[in-house]
């Protein structure tokens, strides 16, 4: 049999070939994705395997790159808000907030107090929806089908509530520079008040159904241990670093909006493994509910949009600003540079998922493939956010 002279070209693309250069003798190069049910969209991971064990792994990104940062250069600040709903479909309002917050910081715009509360309530509801999505999808990755049905039952209720002020169910563009687009009406507040005890009543059920389940515990306990030092090295934030025992949360460490006035805890876990990250997210359900409850009681009457809020033709003043919020996946940061022109000179979006994913290459070394999927899921990745 003659060997194909073009074998190097047909055997794989640049990433695979480059990755295979340092491969061990007799190992297998495998592409996990870009289309694989457990990669949530189009994440591709090239792995070098020895039998069932992973020797090396390398995530390949960019399949969902949509030039959001470039688009910010051709749109005015107010016109860019719809983009922010589409960076991360899981926690769209967190991104909304990070961007409008950065513009407000740059221009020195004060937001009415009621708008701050409305922002906090909707953002926390969105965080709940995001965690429910993760919870269902993670267990789906691990082979349990029914939990996603329970998660989506509750998630639908949140989406119904958020639909009242925002008009959409997933890619919200609700926040405006200087406030929000619409006030929460009586209906909406009543349904949020109804939802809180309902969600509380569901949490013990989640514990009985899944969290205590021995099959799940055997799958995630002791898998994917990440040391706090590694988290810091990669810039991991959100439940990933909190799952490693570091109580780092932007809402507390760099407080913004009304969070300093609220009483809530930052759940952490000393387990450092996939179970720790799982526990942190489950504990965050209760904390988010607490925040929403307090906000509803403390919310004053008033406007939700500042008078003279920027119109689409508004020019941002010269300067630069950085604003970070705590998203469901970690620290969402937006860095703006304006030269006083019609559009922003540069918009840098810091996606928490990008840093969290970078950990995967190191953590997955030496684990079996099934555990790698459990680690990947525990990082809570939303690929559109990573690629931006």
């Amino acid at each position: 049999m003659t060997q194909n002279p073009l074998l190097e070209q047909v055997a794989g693309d640049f990433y695979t070939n480059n990755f295979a250069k340092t491969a061990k003798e007799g190992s297998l190069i495998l592409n996990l994705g870009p289309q694989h049910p457990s990669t949530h969209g189009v994440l591709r991971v090239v792995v070098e395997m020895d039998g069932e064990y992973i020797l090396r792994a390398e995530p390949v990104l960019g399949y969902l790159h949509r030039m959001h940062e470039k688009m910010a250069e051709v749109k005015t600040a107010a016109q860019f808000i719809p983009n922010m709903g589409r960076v991360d479909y899981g926690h769209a309002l967190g991104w909304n907030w990070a961007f409008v917050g950065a513009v407000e910081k740059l221009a020195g715009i004060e937001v009415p107090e009621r708008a701050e509360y409305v922002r906090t309530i909707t953002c926390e509801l969105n965080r709940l929806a995001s965690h429910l999505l993760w919870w269902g999808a993670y267990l789906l990755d691990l082979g349990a089908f029914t939990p996603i049905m329970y998660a989506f039952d509750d998630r639908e209720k949140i989406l119904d509530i958020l639909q009242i002020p925002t008009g959409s169910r997933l890619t919200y563009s609700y926040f405006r520079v200087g406030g929000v687009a619409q006030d929460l009406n009586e209906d909406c507040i009543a349904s949020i008040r109804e939802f809180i005890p309902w969600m509380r009543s569901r949490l013990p059920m989640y514990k009985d159904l899944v969290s205590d389940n021995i099959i799940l515990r055997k799958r995630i306990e002791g898998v994917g241990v990440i040391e706090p030092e590694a988290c810091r090295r990669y810039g991991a934030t959100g439940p990933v670093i909190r799952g490693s025992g570091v109580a780092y949360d932007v809402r507390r460490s760099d407080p913004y909006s009304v969070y300093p006035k609220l009483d809530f805890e930052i759940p952490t876990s000393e387990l450092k493994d996939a179970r720790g990250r799982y526990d942190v997210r489950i504990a965050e359900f209760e904390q988010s509910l607490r925040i929403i409850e307090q906000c509803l009681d403390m919310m004053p009457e008033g406007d939700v949009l500042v008078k003279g809020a920027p119109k689409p033709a508004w020019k941002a003043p010269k300067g630069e600003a950085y604003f970070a919020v705590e998203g469901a996946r970690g620290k969402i940061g937006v860095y703006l540079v304006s030269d006083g022109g019609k559009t922003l000179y540069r918009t840098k979006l810091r996606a928490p998922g990008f840093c969290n994913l970078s950990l995967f290459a190191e953590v997955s070394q030496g684990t079996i493939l099934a555990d790698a999927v459990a680690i990947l899921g525990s990082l809570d990745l939303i690929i559109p956010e990573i690629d931006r």
Partner: protein
Amino acid sequence: MNAIKEAFKTVSDLWSLMVGLRVTGKYFLEPQRTVRYPWKALANTATYKGHLELVGGMKDPFKPRCISCGMCALACPSHCLTVVKKKAPKPTPEEEKAIAEAKANGEKPRDKTPKDPEQFIYDYTLCSLCGTCMENCPAGALRFSKNIYMAGYSRNDFLFDLVVKLRESEATAPTEPAAPAAEKSEA
């Protein structure tokens, strides 16, 4: 001692499965939560955004309130709106005379151009339903429709003239006694 511990652990592990099964059994007996869509639709669509539509005027609900200022087209992040202004009607000989007289007196002639748009082209394929156009409309002439299940066979089905759409909506609107048919032809 270790054997007892092991046995106890096995039992508690098995018990966790039984607890989970109890939850599943409980929900199995509850009524169905999902809706089988084509046969039954949800009723929570009242606040959901459909495509854009023009708001009718006070006098004639099927003639747009729009004043063709073009703010919406300027504000739109995805450039999906095109507003075509109406041309000024050709003046009759008497009117021409009046204009010439007014000019001679140093007055500005009255602009007789109708304010409402000739065409209001809307590309739904580009629209992200952000509502920027609505917020920047000085006349309050735009809103989101309730038509959320819109589907089409070709790309052109989503490129439409909102003025025509508003006029067509008269056919399906509930008939009111105070809506003379002769008035709509002038638009």
